[in-house]
């Protein structure tokens, strides 16, 4: 079985990797590239813990083959903070205690970031529907939704000032 040589962009960096044809993007990220921020929950696209952004759209990395990543632009949780500087969503998740065990958090942050890029002023209903594919067994979702709404408000203010 021959391996695929894939050239792609991850969090703005050019990345090359070799993968087996049946390996998922999640397998590649975690096991070949050491990027373990994206989590495997269900492995069937139900839980959203492996959410990454591919060409501006969020997808479950467990439902995409590594070989499909050729030429795509991928962003993961590892690209969210700028060095020590947390993204407003990350900061608001800490402030609101919007996580407990934390397994779902990377996926939710990546998904919420994509929402706010598309819709800087979402209603609570829009946040809940957008994140319907991200399951959390700890928080009951309320703090997550509040953290996202609060981050959105802060980011809107910042954009206005800039």
């Amino acid at each position, binding site marked *: *079985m021959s391996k*695929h040589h894939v050239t792609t962009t991850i969090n703005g960096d050019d990345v090359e990797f070799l993968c087996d*044809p*049946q390996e*998922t993007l999640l397998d590649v990220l975690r096991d070949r590239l050491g990027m373990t921020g994206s989590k495997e929950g269900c*492995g*069937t*696209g*139900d839980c*959203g813990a492996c*959410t990454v952004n*591919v060409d501006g*759209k*969020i*997808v*479950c990395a*467990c*439902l*995409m*083959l590594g*070989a*499909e990543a*050729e030429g795509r632009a991928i962003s993961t949780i590892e690209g969210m903070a700028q060095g020590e500087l947390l993204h407003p969503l990350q900061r608001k998740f800490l402030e609101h205690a919007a996580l407990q065990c934390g397994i779902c958090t990377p996926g939710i942050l990546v*998904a919420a970031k*994509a*929402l706010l890029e598309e819709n800087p002023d979402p209603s609570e209903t829009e946040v809940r*529907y*957008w*994140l*319907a*594919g*991200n399951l959390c067994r700890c928080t009951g979702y309320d703090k997550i939704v509040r953290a996202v709404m609060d981050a959105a408000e802060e980011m809107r203010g910042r954009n206005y000032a800039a």
Partner: protein
Amino acid sequence: MRYEAPTTVEDAVKLLAAEQGMAKVLAGGTDLLVAIRSGRIEPDLVVDLKRIEEMTGIEPEDGGFRIGAAVPSAEMGAHANLVAMWPGVVESAGLIGSTQIQSRATVAGNLCNASPAADSVPALAAARAKASIVGPNGRRDVPVEDVPAGPGKTSLEKGEFVASILLPKQAARGGDAYLRFIPRTEMDIAVVGVGVNLTLDESASISEARVVLGAVGPRVIVAEEAAEALVGTSGDEAAMKAFSEAVSAACAPIDDKRGTREYRIEVAGVLAKRAVAIAMDRAKGR
């Protein structure tokens, strides 16, 4: 398993036709990858359609639209002209899975996965959509409802695949709708699905109707007698009662964990009336 990502339809056909073992087509992968990872299937070849240009776009054709087999549901929802002409079809595709799934899942894949509960199939069939199938013997267009042959089975022959879905032009006073019943508000599989497409005449009575039921039989059911019960009426109470009964009579569901046979039959009749009301409003609004 080999993975190939051809850039032309011809190359995809050749790859699939030449494979001696199991060959699978990959569009969004939201069903295929789950099946592969669970070990339910072990394909020898996977042919990814997403690098073939004609499969990645929504193009106007004959007053309607041709939707490439690799177009994800989210792109259908973002296509203003498609939404304006076929809101029911777009909504049916938009009901499938989460935001993440919407970025990948395709209606062609939904059709070829051949689940009796596929949301987009009743809506597409109600709209008289055709599947444009390519294969070693060339291209053929078939009504979408003829593609699923039973749960998990299609009528496609070896080496064939669906290249695009062709939606016709909606009538001047036409409207479509799709409703499904699930026990929660999001992220579930249809207990019953109903696709309706109506045309009204100048006096706002129904001149043409097509009603297609999902999840109440091994394949979608084109409920012709139910549609006939609507034609020539204004959707008045008596007509809707007869219609609802004809819908229930057309159902042939199974009992399973999502609902009993009796429940599905009852719900189908109620849901179909609601879908007709939406389709009529849309037809009047044109």
